[in-house]
């Protein structure tokens, strides 16, 4: 049985009995969809954010960095960096200190970039939204693709020997070691801290989630099935690259984009095309470029964006070809 069935019953009750909207109208479908999806996703977010606050406490990014810097990994480090990118929460405000922190610890540039590519694409919130809206199979494929993007992209960038295009001052910075975690917190207080952290994050993203779901719900209720097929033919060879390239300068959080993307796919946009669009919106953007410009010279930035875009396009084609 679907564990979300009670939520469906509840949203049916609200929509059809309390609001008294006909189930067959566009409005009825949209409102019902909105209530169901918002409740389900907020519920999942609360749980996962609590859980991730615990993970973050025991595995802070500083520890992961020290692990990567601790020895030579002979290529495995690309995999680890990308995997760490999936479990760490990521805010674009952190990309500069992260970049410098990794480089300063002696982690190779390519490995650092692996982390930077995967991190915004996969986080607990994106995974919850994907799983809630697309199901687990597509979620797992998505996570694997994002990791592939990071590992492969970082590997190529690492082989290109671009170290001289890192802003010069980055190499001079020296950090103090082992200055963290100055206060020891008793376990009883920790439980409260986790809750506060998890709740703070959930609260912050709820408006974006609701906005995304609202737009998704409107598309779900009002746009006729198969509507987009008239405009974007599934076999149009240029659809994937165009979606990706158009999306590169744009920025939106994964949280807002995924519900909209789900509704578009449902109405006939091929999954790979939508996925390429979403990955380019979330992973690359003009604001991100401006932030990274402070630590990268223009040539490195161009390579970083160029190679990631090409890989996103490849992933888009693979999804269109193999995932039904």
């Amino acid at each position, binding site marked *: 049985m679907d564990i979300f069935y009670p939520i469906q019953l509840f949203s049916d009750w609200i929509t059809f009995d309390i609001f008294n909207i006909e189930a067959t109208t566009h409005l009825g479908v949209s409102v019902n969809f909105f209530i169901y999806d918002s409740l389900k996703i907020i519920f999942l977010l609360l749980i996962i954010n609590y859980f991730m606050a615990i993970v973050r406490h025991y595995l802070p990014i500083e520890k992961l960095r020290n692990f990567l810097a601790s020895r030579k990994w002979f290529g495995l480090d690309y995999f680890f960096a990308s995997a760490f990118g999936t479990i760490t929460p990521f805010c674009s*405000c952190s990309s*500069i200190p992260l970049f410098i922190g990794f480089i300063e610890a002696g982690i190779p540039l390519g490995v650092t970039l692996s982390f930077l590519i995967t991190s915004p694409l996969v986080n607990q919130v994106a995974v919850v939204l994907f799983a809630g809206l697309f199901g687990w199979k597509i979620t797992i494929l998505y996570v694997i693709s994002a990791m592939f993007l990071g590992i492969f992209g970082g590997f190529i960038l690492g082989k290109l020997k671009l170290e001289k295009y890192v802003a010069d001052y980055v190499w001079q910075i020296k950090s103090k070691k*082992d200055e963290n975690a100055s206060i020891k917190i008793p376990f009883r207080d920790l439980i409260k801290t986790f809750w506060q952290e998890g709740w*703070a994050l959930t609260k912050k993203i709820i408006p974006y989630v609701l906005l995304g779901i609202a737009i998704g719900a409107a598309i779900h209720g009002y746009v006729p099935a198969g509507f987009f097929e008239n405009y974007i033919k599934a076999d149009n060879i240029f659809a994937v690259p165009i979606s990706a390239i158009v999306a590169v300068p744009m920025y939106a959080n994964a949280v807002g984009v995924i519900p909209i993307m789900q509704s578009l796919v449902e109405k006939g946009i091929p999954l790979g095309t939508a996925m390429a669009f979403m990955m380019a919106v979330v992973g690359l953007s003009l604001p991100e470029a401006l932030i990274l410009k*402070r630590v990268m010279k223009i040539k490195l930035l161009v390579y970083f964006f160029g190679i990631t875009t090409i890989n996103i396009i490849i992933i888009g084609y693979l999804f269109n070809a193999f995932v039904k």
Partner: protein
Amino acid sequence: MQIQVLGSGCPTCKKLFELTKQAVEELGLKTEVEYITDIQKIVEMGVMSSPVLAINGKPAISGFLPDVEKIKETIKKFI
């Protein structure tokens, strides 16, 4: 006591600065809250996620935006 908020100038960091000022005021402290956007300072502290709330030069909260109560609690531990 020295209270600093460090960030790369993003909205979350500014918000933490505002909240910290509010927390200091509500606690009736005379301390001035410092807002630092110099990335080097953040990295020198050994922290890699921003924003950072640092007390007496050491990071106390980093990587997420706490509410005022949490900030007050954290500051109180150092009084």
